[in-house]
């Protein structure tokens, strides 16, 4: 028990399984999260993200396996764990009849803060989350963006070691999403954050590490770059070059590094070329050298980066087929 409190592991999950009647929501997952990390839990709806978070926040027990937060067992030392976490559930439930400041103060008191301390902390988190102007408004009358910020402020109010946010940006407009993301990013280092989302670019932007869940299992884990790497090799090059298409085709077919190419008419005299490399080479220097030698004008030369979307599709594909079988 004392061991992990000395090391810098914030979350340790091993062989965690949760079965509901007739359905396995989380199937034997294991992972760890270090202190100060922002980790994204990704997956489609029903992948087991929320269940994992509910177990970690001591709301429901696991069927089997072990989960520790800051070295405390979530089942046997639930109060110790609950003292150390700030949890915002999916769709952020609040008491609609309460005022913002009143609600946050109530929550601070529930989390064991003294009267004076809770007043200080409420003022601080309200500033941090941009709620100072709406402190006296009734929660039920606030816009969704503000309500989301109230939920975040609640998760932060007792300065928890671990913050668990279940889909914190769902249903917000782009502007609100940006401000919530910035807020979460600003927590890095001081707090450990576990966020679930099914929006991949979002995780890419906020998280230092990602766990991809599907069907109750963790299918991939690593930094966004790690997850990109296996696919990056095969990435295509897009070039827009001002040259006659026949000559371009002829040149490309003579370059051994190019496995496949496609030249189509672009705007004006430019041709749009999509080139697939052999053996995962980066074709950009070769294309540049060719254009320089021939004196062609190059308007665009980019490598098509695989988004996490692609990775995601690749990871999830085989299993969907399995499920169909």
């Amino acid at each position, binding site marked *: 028990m004392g061991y992990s409190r000395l090391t810098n592991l914030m979350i340790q999950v091993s062989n965690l399984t949760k079965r509901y009647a007739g359905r396995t929501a989380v199937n034997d997952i294991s992972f760890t999260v270090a202190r100060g990390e922002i980790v994204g839990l990704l997956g489609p709806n029903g992948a087991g993200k929320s269940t994992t978070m*509910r177990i970690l*926040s*001591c*709301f*429901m*027990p696991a069927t089997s396996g072990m989960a520790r937060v800051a070295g405390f067992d979530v*089942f046997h030392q*639930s*109060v110790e764990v*609950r*003292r150390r*976490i700030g*949890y*915002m*559930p999916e*769709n952020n*439930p*609040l*008491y609609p*009849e*309460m005022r913002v400041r009143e609600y946050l103060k*109530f*929550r601070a*008191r*529930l*989390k*064991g803060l*003294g009267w004076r301390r809770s007043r200080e902390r409420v003022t601080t988190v309200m500033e941090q989350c941009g709620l100072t102007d709406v402190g006296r408004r009734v929660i039920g009358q606030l816009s969704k963006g503000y309500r989301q910020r109230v939920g975040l402020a*609640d998760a932060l109010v007792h300065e928890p070691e671990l913050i668990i946010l279940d889909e914190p940006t769902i249903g917000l407009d782009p502007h609100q999403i940006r401000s919530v993301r910035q807020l979460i990013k600003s927590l890095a280092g001081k707090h450990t954050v576990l966020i679930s989302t099914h929006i991949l670019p979002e995780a890419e932007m906020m998280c230092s590490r990602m766990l991809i869940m599907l069907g109750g299992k963790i299918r991939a884990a690593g930094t966004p770059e790690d997850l990109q790497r296996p696919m990056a090799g095969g990435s295509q090059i897009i070039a827009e070059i001002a040259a006659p298409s026949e000559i371009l085709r002829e040149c490309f077919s003579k370059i051994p590094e190019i496995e496949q190419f496609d030249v189509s008419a672009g705007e004006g005299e430019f041709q749009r070329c999509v080139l697939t490399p052999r053996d995962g080479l980066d074709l950009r220097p070769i294309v540049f050298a060719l254009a320089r030698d021939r004196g062609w004008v190059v308007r665009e030369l980019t490598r098509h980066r695989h988004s996490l979307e692609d990775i995601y599709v690749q990871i999830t594909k085989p299993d969907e087929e399995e499920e169909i079988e």
Partner: protein
Amino acid sequence: MKIFWALLRRELASFFFSLTGYVIIAAVTFLIGESFAQLIDGLGTDPWPMPVTQMFFGSLYFWMIVLLVAPVITMRLFALEKASGTFETLMTTPVGDFQVVAAKFAAALFFYVVMWLPLLVCLFIVGRFTNQANALDSGTIGGMCLGIFLAGGFFLSFGCLASALTRSQMAAAMISLAFGISQFALAWWAKNNPVSDQWQSQLLSCLNIFDQMNDFARGVVDTRAVIFYASLTLLFLFLTLRLVESRRWR
């Protein structure tokens, strides 16, 4: 304790800062007033055969108020929190299950007591404008208050249990209403079946909430009745606590 007070304050605020709370108080005041008007109407000629409080308890109004109001007060306690999801945010803070159950029950009981205050005003008016000594005295008023309090605790604690059972407020209200009405019907049955040596009828007489309340209204505090109400109230609260805890091992 700090946490209990914070919870209690929030529960009370949800009663007193909402329209529902005032609708309940208004409806109860209306019913008390109506029963009071009928009492006054029936009086005036003969010397009163019994204390006013006993006449009030003997009327259907008292039971109607208790049976209808207890489900309405308690139905939202747990069911609403479960349905809206705030139960999750509540139970993931370091609060104890006992604190939650105790605060919710205490708030419901407090609201119930506040709701009965207009009755005291009515009794005050009777006391002020009549000169019949046997109509009212501090003993009967004290007995009546204790009776109202104990009966409230009994039905409200069952309401808590019903609310903890389900996430639908409607279902919770129906369960506790059915319980209340069945108690009422049992008492009715017991009233019409005089006690014999058979154990069934003796058991039935123990459940006779009419007679118990009648004693309270006469200013007679029967320890059997006090124990009956207090022990069942504690039992229902204990079961509620177990239900709330069951989330952790189910």
